[in-house]
């Protein structure tokens, strides 16, 4: 228990969050309690109690969440219940292990291993300040092309197997320490190798993402499959560790989410280590931690309270662009693009976001052909480093954002996936995001998810949007692909072309409720496309006012709304331009949900598109818990998971859910992406757009008005509000941007400069190491069984000289399997006498073998006699040892080591 305290002390520096603090303290307390109770409680009672506590933990959490929610509100309830749950689970696990260790010396190894894992996991998964499950492990697995779920399950099986072996070894006679001494360190070593190798590989890859192409093979050579698998993997894996179910891990669950977010800053690939800085950001309470994370990525962390502030999701786009480009650019067949991304992202599972960016960039640079593979790799190695993303991603020039990947076939989630969503909802959600463009936005966003500015908007006129939120639309997602919405060519009102010259959005002219607004945008971060206040109708490139500060500048002309939603009642929405605006996943629950939400409305309003949209978004907003920690995962119906599950998620979840519901209600709807900037950020005529304001929101088509934003305003949030705008910065940037002239912009920038790292094949080495470790383990296991088999049959074919020895070894194998091996220092005869109770024939066999070894070298014993004795030993063991013990023995790898 001292050790537990020590472990706690050791890790607490990474354990910033209250939850982790609680977990450590509870584990230490559990150890202490088990020690104290050892003399008073029988082992079974103690272990049973610990197990019961473990099972009850989720229940207790639910109860606490419910009651505290009534008294103190949702946020406090979530936080407190998490604390209780984690504490209880940690306490139970620690106490159970301790009790077992007290009664079975062999379990001490398990306890020590658990402790080691407990120390290692925070350290391993500590990335950018957010941490959760052994991220490094899943990274490594994905890197190696394995499904992380399989790896986890394999580890679990191995652990269970190890425990059984230890118990079995202890059962018959004495604990076989030798076995534990050999196996446990071997397993730990192999695991460490895998992890270390994996992380090194990941790290390195990011650093030199360009090379990625080389590693094509790995993750998913085939875009589609690769893409999907990983993602699924995550999905599943998640559950395993998932918070919901979770035991110990549970805590992480949420946490992870957080983690991912942090990575965001896609920018310059810095080694993970470096990455930390961001990490340090306050993880705060565990929930809190996300926040940071969340904030980061989210950009939109909506202020907890304030539904008001629109979650600026889209904003991140900037970051995303890279992705976008490559996606688009490289693989014109947009599909791939997405696919890749997805691939990329999935891998990281938890840290979805961050990586992508990297991935992307590389891709961008590389020859298109390569990308698919390339991306994945990169993405895959998300590991981590997403350095703080403030720095604008240097990479790719805004490629032709042009091709909105129309139909990422690959990207689309396999139909099969559908089934699961509901159940796993929450857990899945955490999964890494898929290749959703949205996601990418966010990821990128994450990259830029920090509060650092991405652009400055200079307004030519006074104007305040009705909702007090500036929606800067950059793209729209309207085509249903699988379970999510993707950019579609039908949305002609969003800028998709290269950011040069002029572009006019072709949108039907509104007949009212809109007014004209012009202005200028100076971007600090690469953008895939222009953006401007909602309903921009034209853009024009202008000279960059300050090259040292901005990467692009353009003017916009928008038709902005003048009245709030209430002014739009009574209009129709028949202009469903395309049937595509009414498509939603074939899930009857959507229709049911719509019916439920619309039930309280007066009948006459049920046909009013605006009223329907508002009641839908309101219904979602009331129930939703804004949580950046949840990851949007493209291969399952995340909207359904969100909507019919825990209602935890962020803008992407909410937007999808809302759009599907609107479509289910017959209202043409799509998702708009871009930035949602609180009106309070306006300083004079300067509006500062920050990465954390990236957002995605639902939009409905209103005849005569056009696409109208009906955003979801969550009433509950576990993500903290963003930091306030830096006044000085706004002023400075605003002035800088104002100097812009109206001249034509320079030609598109050349490929951005990026540092070249020396090409030491660290990644290959790391991967080779982990692969080697994996195969070593496989070989070791296979070798042991092969040895057992060979030694079993060898006497039948032995030469007369070798027969006595081989027969003896075979007999000793049989005895060792049931725990009757010779003790060190025990003589052969003494051993034979000891096992005579189980196998009397062994004494004779042993005598013959000994005589062959030490006696006169005359005639060797009769072959049939020896084989008969050997069979006799086996038959006697069958008769005297219970079947399950023999079965364990047959499975026991270590028995060959106990033949002495």
């Amino acid at each position, binding site marked *: 228990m001292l050790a537990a305290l020590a472990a706690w002390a050791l890790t607490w520096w990474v354990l910033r969050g209250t939850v982790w603090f609680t977990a450590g303290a509870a584990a230490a307390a559990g150890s202490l309690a088990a020690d104290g109770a050892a003399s008073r409680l029988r082992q079974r009672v103690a272990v049973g109690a610990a197990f019961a506590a473990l099972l009850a933990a989720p229940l207790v959490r639910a109860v606490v969440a419910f009651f505290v929610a009534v008294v103190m509100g949702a946020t406090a309830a979530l936080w407190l219940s998490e604390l209780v749950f984690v504490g209880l689970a940690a306490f139970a696990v620690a106490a159970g292990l301790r009790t077992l260790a007290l009664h079975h010396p062999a379990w001490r190894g398990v306890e020590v291993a658990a402790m080691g894992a407990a120390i290692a996991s925070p350290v391993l998964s500590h990335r950018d300040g957010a941490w959760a499950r052994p991220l490094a492990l899943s990274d490594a697995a994905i890197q190696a092309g394995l499904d992380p779920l399989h790896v986890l399950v394999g580890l679990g099986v191995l652990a269970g197997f190890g425990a059984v072996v230890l118990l079995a070894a202890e059962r018959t006679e004495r604990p076989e320490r030798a076995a534990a001494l050999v196996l446990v360190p071997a397993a730990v070593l192999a695991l460490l190798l895998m992890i270390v190798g994996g992380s090194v590989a990941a790290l390195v890859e990011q650093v030199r993402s360009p090379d990625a192409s080389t590693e094509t093979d790995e993750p998913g050579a085939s875009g589609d499959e690769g893409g999907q698998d990983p993602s699924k993997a995550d999905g599943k894996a998640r559950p395993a560790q998932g918070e919901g179910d979770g035991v110990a891990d549970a805590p992480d669950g949420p946490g992870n989410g957080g983690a991912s977010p942090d990575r965001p800053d896609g920018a310059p690939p810095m080694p993970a280590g470096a990455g930390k800085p961001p990490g340090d950001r306050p993880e705060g309470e565990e929930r809190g931690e996300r926040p940071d994370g969340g904030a980061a990525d989210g950009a939109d962390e909506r202020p907890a309270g304030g539904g008001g502030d629109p979650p600026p999701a889209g904003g991140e786009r900037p970051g995303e662009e890279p992705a976008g480009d490559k996606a688009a650019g490289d693989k014109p067949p947009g599909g791939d693009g997405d696919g890749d991304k997805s691939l990329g992202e999935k891998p990281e599972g938890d840290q979805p976001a961050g990586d992508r960016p990297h991935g992307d960039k590389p891709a961008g640079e590389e020859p298109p052909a390569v990308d698919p593979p390339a991306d994945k790799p990169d993405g895959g190695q998300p590991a981590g480093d997403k350095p703080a993303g403030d720095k604008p991603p240097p990479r790719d020039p805004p490629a032709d954002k042009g091709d909105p990947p129309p139909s990422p076939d690959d990207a689309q989630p396999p139909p099969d996936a559908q089934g699961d969503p509901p159940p796993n909802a929450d857990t899945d959600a955490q999964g890494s995001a898929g290749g959703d463009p949205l996601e990418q936005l966010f990821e990128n966003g994450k990259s830029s998810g920090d509060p650092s500015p991405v652009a400055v908007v200079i307004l030519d006129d006074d104007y305040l949007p009705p909702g007090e939120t500036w929606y800067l639309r950059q793209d729209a997602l309207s085509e249903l692909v699988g379970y999510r919405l993707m950019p579609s060519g039908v949305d002609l009102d969003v800028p998709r072309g290269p950011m040069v010259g002029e572009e006019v959005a072709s949108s039907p002219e509104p007949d009212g409720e809109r007014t004209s607004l012009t202005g200028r945008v100076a971007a600090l971060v690469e953008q895939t496309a222009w953006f401007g206040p909602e309903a921009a109708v034209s853009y024009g490139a202008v000279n960059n006012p300050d090259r040292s500060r901005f990467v692009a500048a353009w003017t916009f002309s928008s038709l902005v709304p003048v009245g709030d939603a209430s002014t739009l009642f009574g209009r129709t929405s028949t202009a469903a331009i395309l049937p595509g605006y009414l498509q939603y996943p074939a899930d009857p629950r959507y229709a049911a949900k719509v019916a439920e939400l619309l039930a309280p409305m007066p009948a006459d309003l049920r046909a009013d598109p605006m009223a329907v949209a508002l009641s839908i978004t309101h219904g979602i907003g009331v129930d939703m818990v804004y949580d950046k920690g949840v990851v949007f995962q493209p291969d399952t119906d995340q909207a359904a998971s969100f909507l019919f599950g825990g209602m935890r998620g962020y803008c992407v979840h909410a937007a999808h859910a809302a759009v599907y519901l609107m479509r289910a209600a017959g209202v043409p709807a799509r998702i708009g992406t871009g930035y949602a900037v609180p009106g309070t950020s306006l300083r004079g005529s300067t509006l500062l757009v920050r990465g954390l304001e990236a957002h995605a929101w639902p939009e409905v088509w209103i005849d005569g008005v056009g696409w109208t934003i009906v955003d979801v305003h969550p009433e509950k949030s576990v993500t903290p509000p963003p930091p306030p705008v830096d006044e000085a910065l706004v002023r400075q940037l605003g002035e800088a941007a104002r100097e812009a002239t109206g001249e034509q912009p320079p030609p598109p920038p050349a490929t951005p400069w990026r540092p070249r790292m020396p090409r030491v094949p660290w990644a290959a080495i790391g991967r080779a190491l982990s692969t080697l470790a994996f195969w070593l383990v496989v070989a070791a296991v296979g070798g042991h069984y092969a040895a057992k088999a060979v030694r079993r049959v060898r006497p039948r074919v032995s030469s007369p000289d070798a027969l006595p020895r081989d027969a003896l070894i075979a007999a000793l194998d049989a005895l060792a399997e049931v725990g009757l091996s010779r003790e060190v220092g025990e*003589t*052969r005869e003494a051993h034979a006498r000891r096992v005579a109770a189980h196998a009397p024939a062994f004494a004779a066999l042993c005598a013959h073998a000994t005589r062959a*070894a*030490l*006696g006169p070298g005359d005639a060797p014993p009769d072959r049939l006699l020896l084989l008969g004795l050997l069979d006799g030993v086996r038959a006697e063991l069958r008769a005297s040892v219970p079947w399950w013990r023999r079965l364990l023995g047959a499975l026991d790898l270590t028995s060959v080591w106990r033949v002495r």
Partner: protein
Amino acid sequence: MMNDLTLAQDVVRRLRARLNAAVIGREAVIDAVILALLADGHVLLEDYPGSGKTTLAKALGDALIDDETTDTLVAMRRIQFTPDLLPSDITGTTIFEPEHQRFTFRQGPLFALVLLADEINRTSPKVQSALLEAMAEKQVTVDNETRRLDELFFVIATQNPLDLAGTFPLPVAQLDRFLFKIRMVPIAREAERRLLDALDEVKRGAPESLSRVSRTDVVTARRSIVERVVVAPAIKDALVDLAQATRSSPLIHQGVSTRSLVQIVPALQTRALMEGRDHVTDEDLAALSPLVFAHRIQLAPGAPSADEVLRRCAQPVLDKLARQALGRR
């Protein structure tokens, strides 16, 4: 293969039968004594008074027949050692015969097949050394004339481990002459009870139905054992390893002597025979090394008991030996 050893086994069997009939509850000690007799060693029994030492020695003498008619030996003699004993008291002395006007040699108690040397630590070192010379060389020198003892000559010495006042403890060098030092433990409860039941029979001695063993049989058995029981090279290696281990162990001040290795080999062979084998195994070594070596080593200060120290020294050696049966080194 065992044919040559059947006589030896028969000797063992008959001696066991007779001794066990005479001494109840001492099977282990009886086996050790028989083993020493056949291995041509001597035995030092360490026990409290009244524990059956003399009975055992007498029974052994009784079980042996001196079939050498030409000599004047007796089967068994006993010397009670006292501080005032003189060497000539045990070796014998030359006396003048007035009738024949010459000196003749009168044999002392050493001239016997089995000698019981009671309380050997109570006599002076010079008497002890006279006895020990006889044990080692099987000869005595009186008046510059060396006289051979019988080839069978077998000494059972005893000493009381507690009552040490006025004693002359045997130095390690002299203990080295004894093959075994046996610490007798109180006999088991049932055996003691049985002994009381069988008091009459015990007094009468072994029944005549149990045949005795002739001196010639024993000598022949000794020879055949040495010749016929195989000592594998691995065993000899192990012996040397063990000796080296005792010499290098920090717990042992003085390791075992080379003489003890020479003596233990026939003992190992005899034990193998008594276990019904024609070859020495690690089991024999494990069983005999404490008996043979424990009294020959001098422990360093702070060491645990000699048996424990020996066990630690022997463990790796024995383990290696056992592994050799698996063809491993």
